[in-house]
């Protein structure tokens, strides 16, 4: 099961709010007694990027997809990619709905361009708004 990018009606599942931290390269910083800073670069790939997606007021059945996916990837254990919509008739064709609305370089919000994959940082947070409608927030973290 891939990360949910379409609702059960086949429409793109686009978040209503998104925040992103671009992570960092694996750098170790040492401070000498004289105050000089020494930095050692341990890797060539940026990692630890954090992507938070909120899907407000979606149907419970669509919200359940995130809970099911969290279970499929064994919680915070397995990694995954966000995926694209392959349907050529969709306005989101060849686009990743979680990144929709971002007009900058598509790769900037991704993890796989730096050989990272996303995994869940924690369990999806679900808030029931009214009968049949819920808000889901998922927090993802990029790992090598």
């Amino acid at each position, binding site marked *: 099961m891939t990360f949910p990018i379409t609702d059960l009606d086949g429409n793109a599942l686009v978040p*209503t709010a998104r925040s992103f931290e671009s992570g960092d390269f694996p750098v170790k910083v040492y401070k000498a007694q004289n105050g000089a800073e020494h930095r050692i670069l341990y890797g060539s790939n940026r990692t630890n990027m954090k992507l938070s997606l909120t899907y*407000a*007021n*979606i149907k419970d059945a669509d919200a359940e997809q995130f809970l099911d996916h969290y279970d499929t990837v064994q919680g915070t254990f397995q990694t995954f990619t966000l995926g694209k919509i392959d349907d050529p008739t969709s306005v989101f064709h060849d686009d990743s709905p979680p990144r*929709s*609305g*971002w007009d900058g370089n598509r790769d900037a919000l991704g993890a796989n361009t730096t050989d990272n994959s996303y995994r869940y940082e924690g369990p999806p947070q679900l808030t029931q*708004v009214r009968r049949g409608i819920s808000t889901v927030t998922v927090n993802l973290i990029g790992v090598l």
Partner: protein
Amino acid sequence: MSYFTGSSGSLRMDGKDVAAVQSWSVNASVSLLSVKSLAETDDRFIAGNRTITGSCRVLYYQETLGDTGSSEGNTNASAILNRIFKVRSTASDAAFFYQGGTLDQGDDVDEKRLTLRLKIDDTSVDTANPLNSGRYIEMRVIITNASMTMAVGEVLAVDITFQAHGAPTALDI
């Protein structure tokens, strides 16, 4: 084509007409939940929940001097006031230990709500049930506010606001 004025309006509370009603109003509003996602430019909504509130103004009068109760089978302003103004309980109940009184507003004990029917008398008659004649919105409500002001040059009246508990119980409007 028929139009209606205040003379066609009336109000019933728990099955009895309320006497000397000067006005009533009712307001239904639906809260909205935004479903606008990133990349969209215009708001889209789904309905969240509905709230029905209303108000009425009832003139305070006494059918005969000193009579503050219901008269001629009607409910008057005094009877409405007694739905919300409550004397402190003398019962040795822990719930009333701090000089509290009951919050019951209905006819029955432990009944917190009452039934209001806002009516428009359009001269139509329901022969099977005359009480259902005319057009109406009937709902279970809780009186949320009652105020009365005594002032020189004005008739004493009670202003009531209420909020519906659930959807209307009967509707023909």
